[in-house]
Structure formats: structure tokens, C-alpha cells
């Protein structure tokens, strides 16, 4: 039995899994307070993890009908993410593991999103590609073997896709989180009404969303406040289409260049139905976990941990967090 903890951004998450990866419970304590700030504020996230995490862990144990003494190990997200937020999860996990005298496993958050593919309820064996698109990350991973040994074949050179949704929503005055709000607004709009860029100048399977965000900003400015509000649905639909088209194009190129035909889709953007539909209509053999395992959750961290070794005791006691920038340098 494994207890997993995930606190890399604004959700305080805990899950209990069996040693073979069956999810017995998965609890997410969401910090809705970030709506007030128009996005995730690291300082606020760190404050609230401390309040939420312990009750979330206790709830995960009780939902799974598991006692502390039933636990065989603890897994925790080490990074990448907001360091102040990660440290709350890491310190709690270390204290619990050492207090119970059980091993600790350190999990990379992106590995967790890849491992979420195994929670999709379908038989999935490597090789497969995994598109991870969230507020903090956008990349395509090539998974050749089970476990953590996978390669990144393409990644964003600036913003993440989920970040593009959040920033677009803010420009359109829709609020936070942007993904579901842009999607809802886009339902009544024409995706061809505005011709937003698809990062045509970025070769291969890398992504770029910074120019798209700027184009939306200019479009809104050029329309003027009243006209932009009147055409908000068209703007949202066109903006969403530009994001989706870029995801579809890069994934299609990745399938072509790697020869790997199955693509798993993880991260919060996988909850976007236009993105799923776009990939499916492009002929991609798509595997999508349930939405609860696409957005940040601890079940995926526990599932990833199953393929990892226990940390030596001294390394577990000294475990520290790493940020997105730290990960790039590793």
C-alpha cells in the first residue's frame, strides 16, 4: 500500500494505491482562492497547502479504508513546480515516512502525468507517445519502456498551453481558470472568425504560445472594448482553435517522425473537449485518462512511484524540491 502526495502547484493532493497500482482513493483539495488573483500566486499556494494537506491525507486514508500501519511506502512529487508549494508536500511526506519507518520515493511531476496514462482504464504498453499539456508544462514524451526512462521529443519554447488558456481568458475578461472558461465561451463562437498564429515559424515538434497570446491582445485592442465584448465568443473560439491546431500539428509530426502511433494525453488541457476532438479527428490513436487523472492529482504520482526504487534512508531524509528551471538544468 502506497500513500502518494502531490503539491507542485495549487492543488493539495493525496492518494492511496495498492502495490500493483490500483487506486483506492484520490483526494484533491483545490485552492479556489486563486480565482481572486487571476492566476496561481506562489505565496498564496504555499500558505494554503499547509492548511489543506493534512486533512487531505487523512481523508485519502479514510476513503481507502486504510490505517497508517497498513502503509508500505510514501511517494511525493519532488518537482518541477512551485518550490514553496513542493516543500510542504515533501516535508510532510518525509516526516510521515521516517516516523512510520517506511521507505520514501521521489517522483517527477511530469513522470506522474505520463504515468496517468496507465490509469485510463485501457491496456496500454510502451511504446507510446504522451502529450502533457497543462498550465506549467507542454511537451511530448516518447515512452519506450515502462518506468521513468523516457525521452522528450518536443517541448514549448515559451508558454505552456494551459498558461495560454489562462492568459487568453484574462485578456477576454473571463476569469480563472482559463481552460474551462474559454471552452465554454467558445461554444457559441466561430473558430474561423479570427486568424490567430499557429507558431508556423517553430520547426519540428516544439510548441510556442507566446505570439498567440500577443495576437489576441492586439485583436482585442484593435476591436475596442465594446466590439471585443460583443465578439468575445468568436475571439474565444478562434483562440482555442489556434491552440488546438498547434497541439494537433505537433503531435501528428511526432507520430510521423517516431513511428509510434499510440498517443496518451495528460495534463489539465486534456480536459478540453475541443483538443481531444481535434486529435481524434486528425486520426491520432488517442488514450485519455479520466479528467480527474488529467489535472493535478496524487494517484498519478503513486502510479509513477510503482516503477521507481525506494530512496536510500539518508537521501530520503535530505530530499529537497526542484523547480522547473532546476529540472531543465538536470
Amino acid at each position, binding site marked *: 500500500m502506497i500513500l502518494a502526495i502531490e503539491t507542485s502547484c495549487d492543488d493539495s493532493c493525496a492518494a492511496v494505491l495498492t502495490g500493483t497500482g490500483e487506486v483506492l482513493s484520490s483526494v484533491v483539495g483545490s485552492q479556489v482562492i486563486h480565482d*481572486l488573483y487571476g492566476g496561481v500566486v506562489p505565496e498564496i499556494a504555499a500558505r494554503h497547502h499547509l492548511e489543506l494537506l493534512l486533512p487531505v491525507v487523512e481523508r485519502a486514508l479514510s476513503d481507502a479504508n486504510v490505517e497508517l500501519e497498513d502503509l508500505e511506502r510514501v511517494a511525493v512529487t519532488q518537482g518541477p513546480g512551485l518550490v514553496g508549494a513542493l516543500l510542504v508536500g515533501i*516535508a*510532510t*511526506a518525509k516526516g*510521515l515516512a*521516517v*516516523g512510520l519507518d517506511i521507505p520514501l520515493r521521489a517522483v517527477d511531476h511530469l513522470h506522474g502525468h505520463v504515468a496517468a496514462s496507465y490509469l485510463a482504464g485501457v491496456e496500454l504498453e510502451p511504446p507510446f507517445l504522451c502529450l502533457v499539456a497543462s498550465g506549467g508544462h507542454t511537451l511530448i514524451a516518447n515512452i519506450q519502456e515502462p518506468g521513468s526512462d523516457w525521452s522528450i521529443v518536443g517541448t514549448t519554447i515559451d508558454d505552456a498551453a494551459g498558461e495560454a488558456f489562462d492568459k487568453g481568458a484574462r485578456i477576454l475578461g473571463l476569469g480563472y481558470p482559463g481552460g474551462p472558461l474559454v471552452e465554454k465561451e467558445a461554444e457559441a463562437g466561430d473558430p474561423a472568425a479570427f486568424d490567430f498564429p499557429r507558431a508556423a515559424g517553430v520547426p519540428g515538434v516544439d510548441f510556442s504560445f507566446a505570439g498567440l497570446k500577443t495576437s489576441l491582445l492586439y485583436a482585442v485592442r484593435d476591436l475596442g472594448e465594446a466590439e471585443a465584448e460583443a465578439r468575445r465568443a468568436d475571439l474565444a473560439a478562434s483562440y482555442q482553435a489556434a491552440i488546438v491546431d498547434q497541439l494537433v500539428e505537433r503531435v501528428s509530426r511526432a507520430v510521423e517522425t517516431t513511428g509510434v502511433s499510440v498517443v496518451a494525453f495528460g495534463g489539465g488541457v486534456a480536459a478540453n473537449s475541443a483538443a481531444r476532438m481535434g486529435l481524434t479527428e486528425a486520426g491520432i490513436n488517442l488514450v485519455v485518462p479520466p479528467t480527474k487523472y488529467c489535472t493535478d492529482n496524487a494517484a498519478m504520482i503513486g502510479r509513477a512511484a510503482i516503477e521507481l526504487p525506494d530512496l536510500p534512508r539518508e537521501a530520503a531524509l535530505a530530499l529537497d524540491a526542484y523547480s522547473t528551471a532546476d529540472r531543465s538544468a538536470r
Partner: protein
Amino acid sequence: MSVLSVGIDTSTAETGVGVVLPDGRSLERFDLPQPGSRPAHSSATLRMLKKILADMGTGFDEIGRVAVTVGPGSFTGIRIGLATANGLALAAGVKAQGASSLLTLLRGAADLSQPAVALIDARRGELFVATNTAPHDRFALPVAEQADWWRDFPAGAICIGDGAVQNAEVLREAGFTVPMASDALHRISPINVCLEATGWPEDVDVAPEYLRSPDAIPTAERGL
């Protein structure tokens, strides 16, 4: 104390860990980062605890009580300390107990006959302050904005804590006593954390003591 108590302080750049055994024996250790280095709160706390427990001939499974400073002080350090304490306490089947870092500092000066002022570096030119003449009135003092920021301190007081060390020259010129930087009075004793935390209410989760609001401003208040 009838059970093995652990005390943790991560509210300044130092990491302090202590253990008090049921028979009264106690041991505490400190980790002070080298100049220019980050505090080692995350990597040092549990390693220090393991060593102390081993040196005292006991282990993690004997822990019956966990006390921790709840601030004010280092924002990230306090989160690490509280989360570590929560994890240890959960494993021990108890709730962690909190102690104010300022009041724990003052406890270290309790045997002195003169009034005491505890000063903890709050960064950005501010100090967290408490006096033993009015211990419930704890506040953040914007040093940079006032030429005579010490004017409300009790006359003839001894000033302790890392904030006192940083401002030793001006405090001494103003007539206050500031012990040498190496004096133990400037340190938050983890053993004193165990004692100070006995006043923490039962069944109340530990939470940070904030003396400042978050820097972030809600969108509506920014007029965006």
C-alpha cells in the same frame, strides 16, 4: 514531560532540532548556513533529528510529542518546519503543537532581571518584534521607515534574536544591551520550543503566525 518530545525551529536561517526524553535528559543541535548559502531547513531537519535520537539511544518510533515554531520568521522555513512536524506527529498518532518563535526567544531570557525584546529578521528592512513586558503584542516593525524605530522598547532592555544582532550597533547606541553575536540568547532553543508549545490548545492544527498580509493583491483591488 512523560513522552519523548521533539522540538523543531526553522523560523530563522538556522535549523534547530532538539529532543527531550521522559526522564528529563535533553539534547539540541543547530545548523547555521555558511554566508551566501541558503538555509538547510529542508535537507537538515530530519537528518539532525535522526542523529540526536541515535546519540540519545532512542529512535523515531519513540516520539510521543512534536513541537514546532509557527513563526513569525522565514516564510519557507516555517512551512518546512510545520509540514515536517505534521508528518512526524501524524505517524505518532498525535497533533503537532506550535510555539511562537518570538515568545520562545523571550523564554530563553526569562531568568534575566531586565526587560527583554525579541527581534527576528523579517527581511525587506523589517523586524518581527515582541517584548516580555507585553508578550501578546507581537508586530512587524518597518525599520527602514523610522529613524528611531526602537523608541517604544522598554528602557534598559536586552535585545535578542538575529534581528538584534543585525542592528546591534544602533541598538547599543540607543542604550540597549545586545549580547555578543555568538551568545546563545540569540538562538531559538528547540528545547524551549518544547516548553513553550505546552500552551498550544489540544486538537488544534498548527498554523503559521502571520504578522504580515500576503504581498499578492486580488485582481479586483488592483482595478484590473
